């Protein structure tokens, strides 16, 4: 039970007055980010990241991860009250959450959503507590080929598990790798893709790209949809909360399934959004109330919210243990670790025990704080949503511009942000996935380094990726995932020919 001891130590690190205050601040900011259109977990953290450079890494990550929890909670508020998913992973929550609000059961729906989120996150944190150290210990034996194979697996699984066109996934992902190559090559010191510009020496910062894609792009989309906030009012009082809690235990099977789906989708880079849809779909098929789904069934709120939160939390496991983030938001947090001078990956568990266990402990505390905050402040956030879009939109663009500028104190970054805003808008409309692009941009250099080192080890032969059972197994799985969309398309075509 080494983990429990480490965890207790972590609580000691996390439970200072300053850190607890930062937790509250983070959650409130996070819910705000989750509620407002155009600001989400990933770019909200990207904007705030430069402000944390002066804090100690532990305090900084506690605040930033709390923003993440807050954003996860916040998405549910807009879905249920306004039928507008504040975040992509809360789309499935609108299906039953909004009908419940229309029937005057908004308080119940919100309580169910928040409690489900809390349970999902808690389940995932427990999994991280016991699994992450094991994974890290295992990964300590990894050499460059193993690392490259794991990167390959992560990226191929985007292609294999994505819903859209595999070619679009590949193109977007490789665009990320291409952008990551801009600037000085870390190994040889050569300048790549800078074309004589000193401004491009720094490279294209992924924070700027994230702010553009998810911030500006989202604002443009929101404008196009001509959003009007027509919300239901919400009152949550203690009676509603306890009444709802009394009903929740009968959904234990749905919750458990949602937790498992969420953890699985979070660890593999599927992410919270598909997890929430999958969990909703499975619950609809299995539950005996399935035929009522879509008409305001509480189970239909619990299922996607629990899974989304479990996935969102589980996405931090590969980030901590392997240095491979499971979601764009985790990727931004990973970028933060690099900026604070921490090398994400298995060594973190050996060299930075305080940091890792402080973070894990803060996940427990942050979610408890989160549940309390959201249950008590819903009316406040619902009121914020009633501020007209013509005030919110320019303010968000100003916030994004400041965020992009502070990354490197460069105006070029603000222009790049606008450019990627347009890219984000077009990509969203044409169904190009953005998550693989962001992940490729963050991991590009590391993936390239491990590839180069592997190639040096083998004198340029790709066979090193099959040199032992472990690396061979991972590489083969990666290739299968990569080819999966094409295999299934072929099978589909053959079946059609037979019919």
């Amino acid at each position, binding site marked *: 039970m080494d983990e429990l001891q480490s965890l207790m130590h972590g609580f000691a690190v996390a439970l200072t007055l300053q850190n607890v205050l930062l937790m509250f601040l983070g959650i409130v900011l996070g819910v705000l980010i989750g509620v407002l259109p155009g600001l989400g977990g990933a770019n909200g953290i990207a904007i705030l990241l*430069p*402000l944390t450079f*002066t804090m100690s890494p532990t305090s900084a990550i506690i605040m930033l991860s709390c923003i993440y929890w807050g954003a996860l909670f916040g998405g549910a508020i807009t879905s249920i009250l306004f039928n507008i998913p504040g975040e992509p992973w809360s789309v499935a929550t609108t299906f039953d959450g909004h009908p419940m609000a229309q029937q005057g059961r908004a308080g119940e729906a919100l309580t169910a959503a928040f409690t489900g989120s809390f349970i999902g996150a808690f389940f995932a944190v427990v999994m991280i507590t016991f699994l992450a150290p094991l994974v890290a210990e295992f990964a300590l034996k990894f050499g460059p080929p193993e690392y490259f194979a794991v990167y390959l697996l992560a990226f191929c699984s985007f292609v294999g598990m994505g819903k859209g*066109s595999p*070619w*679009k996934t*590949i*193109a977007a992902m*490789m*665009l990320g*790798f*291409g952008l990551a*190559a801009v600037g000085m*090559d870390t*190994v*040889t010191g*050569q300048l*790549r*893709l800078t*074309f004589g510009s000193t401004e491009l020496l720094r490279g294209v910062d992924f924070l700027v790209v994230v702010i553009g894609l998810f911030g*500006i792009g989202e*604002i*443009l989309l929101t*404008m*196009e*949809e*001509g*959003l*009007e906030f027509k919300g239901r009012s919400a009152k949550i009082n203690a009676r509603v909360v306890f009444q709802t809690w009394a009903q929740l235990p009968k959904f234990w099977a749905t919750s458990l399934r949602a937790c498992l789906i969420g953890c699985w989708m979070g660890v593999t880079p599927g992410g919270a959004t598909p997890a929430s849809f999958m969990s909703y779909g499975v619950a609809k098929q299995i539950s005996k109330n399935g035929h009522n789904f879509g008409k305001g069934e509480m189970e239909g709120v619990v299922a996607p919210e629990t899974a989304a939160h479990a996935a969102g939390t589980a996405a931090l496991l590969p980030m901590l243990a392997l240095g491979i983030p499971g979601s764009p938001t985790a990727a931004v947090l990973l970028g933060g670790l690099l900026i604070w001078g921490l090398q994400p990956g298995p060594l973190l568990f050996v060299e930075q025990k305080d940091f890792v266990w402080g973070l894990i402990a803060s996940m427990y505390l942050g979610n408890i704080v989160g549940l309390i905050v959201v249950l008590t402040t819903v009316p406040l956030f619902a009121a914020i949503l009633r501020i*007209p*879009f*013509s*005030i919110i*939109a*320019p*303010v968000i*663009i*100003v916030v994004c*511009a*400041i965020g992009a*500028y*502070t990354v490197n*104190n460069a*105006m070029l970054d*603000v*222009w790049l942000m*606008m450019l990627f*805003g*347009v890219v984000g*808008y*077009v990509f969203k*409309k*044409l169904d*190009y996935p953005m998550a693989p692009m962001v992940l490729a941009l963050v991991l590009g250099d590391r993936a*390239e380094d491990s*590839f*180069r080192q592997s*190639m*040096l080890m083998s004198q*340029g032969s790709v066979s090193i990726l099959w040199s032992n059972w472990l690396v061979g197994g991972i590489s083969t799985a990666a290739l299968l995932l990569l080819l999966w969309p094409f295999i299934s398309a072929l099978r589909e075509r053959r079946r059609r020919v037979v019919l």
Partner: protein
Amino acid sequence: MGQPEKDHRGVVDTATMEIVVAALFFAFAAVVMFDSYRLGAAWGSDGPEPGYFPFYTGLIIAIASVVLLVQGVRLCRQPRAAFVERGQFKDVLVVLLPALGYVLAIEFVGIYLASACYIAVFMVFLGHYTWKRGVTVGVSVGLFAFVLFERWFSIPLPKGFIERALGF
């Protein structure tokens, strides 16, 4: 924003946009491959040359973009769907163009004044607020940002003549 009398005619159809984006991907791939080739994309005396990894990145983008281009051309034969309708496009431009003007203004007058003006103009012309309210909100946000970044976080943001005149 949500006026009912929106213009529903398409500005450009989805198939055309697919082709344009695929072509842009190809152009990006060409640039990446060209520059990587210039740096050396082969196997040098001390291992892979600096352009080795990016070259293949570019190559994969090029292949993917050609496939997407072909798929886009095929899409042309199907019934056309609008990528964006005129009314929607107008709404998007109404946000995008002032935002670009705002970024340009930052270059000249600093971020605080530019932000205050941008918010005020946006509120008055798009939100149909009175100038008084627009300017109040704009100036408050500008001042708040100034105090937040210059005083509390000591993060220098771009400043213009006003800040300089005040001695910052």
